[in-house]
């Protein structure tokens, strides 16, 4: 089982994702440089980590979507490959059209870093299939632009298709309908603002993030 962790200039959580996957989950991982135009054939799943890709000076993820690696990730996803975007990764996935909606400035207009509670809204996804429905996970958030927004009909569709994967128990950033994470219609691309890779080590105070990685490994094994 091998994860590919995308590295943009400014991807600050690349090392954290790599460490969590290799040290806490026990899988393999390799780093994928932003200028690479294909995904290595031995990569089973891709993580787009958090951070500030290209500085995010224009709009979070707005430059990253034009990078060679994102074209490669898009192809990988369209072929059914599993892709997870955390924080800035979620922003990049919405910017690049792999997921609907957008992440805008937090309603309080400030960066927020704190552990929050998250409810698993569906276990019908390769990222949550080993969780229990309604399970509460304690995961950190750390973002300035994490307010999920989309047209009402898009939100209705997400709900109708059971694509809201996580909701905030107590909404920290103004996200519409408390949405913290969603998947695409094919259910192989996940975007979420909280950081599961920061909750994978008992020393960090929570290991609730592990359920995502374990689910993903289980679903790959079942294939």
């Amino acid at each position, binding site marked *: 089982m091998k994860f590919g962790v995308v590295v943009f*200039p*400014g991807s*600050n*959580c690349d*090392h*954290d994702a790599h*460490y*969590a996957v290799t040290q806490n989950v026990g899988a393999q991982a390799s780093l994928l440089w932003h200028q690479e135009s294909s995904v290595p054939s031995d990569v089973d799943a891709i993580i787009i980590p*958090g*951070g*500030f890709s*290209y*500085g*995010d*000076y224009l709009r979070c993820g707005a430059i990253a979507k034009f990078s060679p690696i994102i074209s490669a990730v898009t192809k990988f996803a369209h072929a059914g490959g599993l892709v997870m975007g955390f924080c800035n990764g979620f922003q990049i996935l919405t910017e690049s059209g792999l997921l609907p909606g957008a992440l805008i400035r937090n309603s309080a207009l*400030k*960066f*927020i*870093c*704190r552990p929050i509670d998250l409810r698993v809204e569906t276990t019908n996804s390769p990222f949550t299939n080993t969780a229990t429905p309604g399970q509460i996970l304690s995961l*950190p958030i*750390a973002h*300035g632009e994490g307010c999920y927004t989309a047209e009402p009909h898009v939100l209705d569709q997400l709900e109708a298709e059971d694509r809201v994967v996580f909701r905030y128990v107590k909404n920290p950033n103004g996200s519409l309908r408390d949405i913290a994470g969603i998947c695409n219609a094919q259910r192989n691309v996940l975007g979420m603002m909280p*950081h599961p*890779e*920061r909750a*994978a*080590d*008992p*020393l*960090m105070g929570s290991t609730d993030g592990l359920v995502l990685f374990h689910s993903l490994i289980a679903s790959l094994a079942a294939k």
Partner: protein
Amino acid sequence: MSTITPEVVAAHSLTPDEYQKVLSLLGREPSLTELGIFSVMWSEHCSYKSSKIHLKKLPTRSQLVILGPGENAGIIDIGQGYGIAFKIESHNHPSFIEPFQGAATGVGGILRDIFTMGARPIAVLDSIRFGPLDDPQTGPRNRRILEGVVAGIAHYGNCFGVPTVGGECVFHKSYDGNPLVNVFALGVIPKDKIFFGRAEGIGNPVIYVGAKTGRDGIHGATMASDEFTEESKQKRPNVQMGDPFLEKLLLEACIEAMHSGAVVGIQDMGAAGLTCSTCEMGSRAGTGVEIDLMHVPQRETGMTPYEIMLSESQERMLLVAEKGREQEIFDIFDKWGLDAATVGVVTDDGMLRVRNHGELIAEINNRDLADEAPLYDRPHTKPHRNVPMEAPDFASTDLKADLIKLLSSGDLCSKRWIYEQFDYMVRTNTLAGPGGDAAIIRIKETGTSVAVSLDGNGRYCYLDPREGAKLVVAEACRNVSTVGALPVAATNNLNFGNPQRPEIMAQLVEAIEGMADACAFFETPITGGNVSLYNETLGEGILPTPVIGIVGLLPTQAPVPSRFQAEGLTVMLLGGIGSSDEVHFGGTQYAYVLLKQMWGLPPALDMAVEKNVHLAIREIDAAGLAASAHDLSDGGFAVALAEASFDGIGAAVILPPSSLRPELLLFHEAPSRILLSTNSPEEVSKIADKLGVPTQVIGKTVKGQVVIEGHLSAAIEELQQPWASALENALHA
């Protein structure tokens, strides 16, 4: 006709005597560019001319110190082939003029100091001080400064990807026109890959990397060496602009270049920019450096040599490479999308030679700039103080109301509004983040963790600079020991007023001497730091504010929490309830917040007792006996007890009989005390007894209540709610 008139000399903040020294060193009249170069290198900020002879009193050596003061950052050995590099630096003046960029570039500057050594930054802490937020006149401005400073630190640290894991935020009227922004950074470094700012190797190329040079920050170092006047706001162009993303790229590229083996020496361009990096690198190596400014990447057109040499544009580094390996360096910087250009060469004659399109612009001996700055033994008399020794009459009518007022005061209230704007978890090493006694960062490479505490106390130091400085060191060492770490080294930031006033100089001298005594006693050598003088506005100096950063080491493990975690545990006071009297109560938070006065002396410190308390708590922590441990400091016993209760488990305690009146008993700030909860009180006492440390069993942990028998009783919520909401309320008043 001479262009260097006395007015021009004065405008460069050089005294007539200093100018005479320039003339005699050069043997001729300087050009304007040369005068500018001298003025920044000889500024207080770069030369430490008022403090240097006193800084020599500080202890700087121990078996763990790999590198002491003099380089960009100190380094200590943490074993298994690794070291940690750390330093604290101030950005006080820029943060007053432009809070957001001033604070942001303060973070950027200290991060460069760390990675210049070859260390990857893994933690930032900040010690920030402002005027009161509720002052009718200055409150609105103080609130804007605080919000700007916090946003600036968050912007830079978050985007760069370094966690901001702790620090302190303090308020006092004397910081009204002169906020303090001291930023500490720490990085991890393989011991065999330490780099120095030295221009070694005659004929080696001098390479400029990073951001292009613009007109920002010209004479920033000279500005930082002046008092503020009404005109200071016009100095806004002296403040630099930060680009954390560029700095992140610069970090990655520099570390990659260093690991390539092609880099001989490297230094960041911080204060005094290209001038400082060239002459210091040459001076340290005993070589000369010749550069031509036409090769310097420039952001603006028509910049003069004077402007290029003195610009403090951010995110730039100067490196010396092995001759013939330039292309390797260029390729690495190109990969990260950064400029890199050969601007000059290392020479054998010890001179800084600056050309512009071949024309000679400046020619000065490197050592004259870096090492020959005038040194002053400025006169110092009795430290300035303008408060009585005797206590005023006071009597509390409601101790619980007093406690609530203290908990919702600026210095003691929750700083969550601030630290939640900082990403304190990125890099997944933060074992203990903001809000505890000390931050703890795990070093993934070694299985060791590092505990850090920043501490300062302007009121203690105002009442007695020498004892105040000792208390500050003692408290920071106590913080680090409370979480189970052995304090091993220190870095200091000395924030004072105008050293040309003998009573201010006396504060500086006595504080340095006190700090030297305490650092020697607690075995925490000072491996580097920063001096920030002229912190005055319109002739009003700040409280003398030496800030210490103590670094400690402990094995990587789940940290001992500072708050009570379970009901029914025994609550103990390690070090006992301590002693005080009216005179030693005059610097406490109680005196400041409730009586709005300052008098007398700071609390009395016995360093031998203090050190034994540190030994005891570390042994108690290591034996796994403490379910929680929290040191007593600002606000005294009652405040510590309340703080320890904010996870919902409080305590019911009975204090032993004491001759102290209730206000003193509950709120005096005698050092050498730690509040802990345990289920093995006998074991704890055994350790304490062995070390001669008094302990008192004072009660039990209970759910939801804080009770001090005979004095006060409160539901935790009554105390916690005002504590938690005070800062936000004050900001949005």
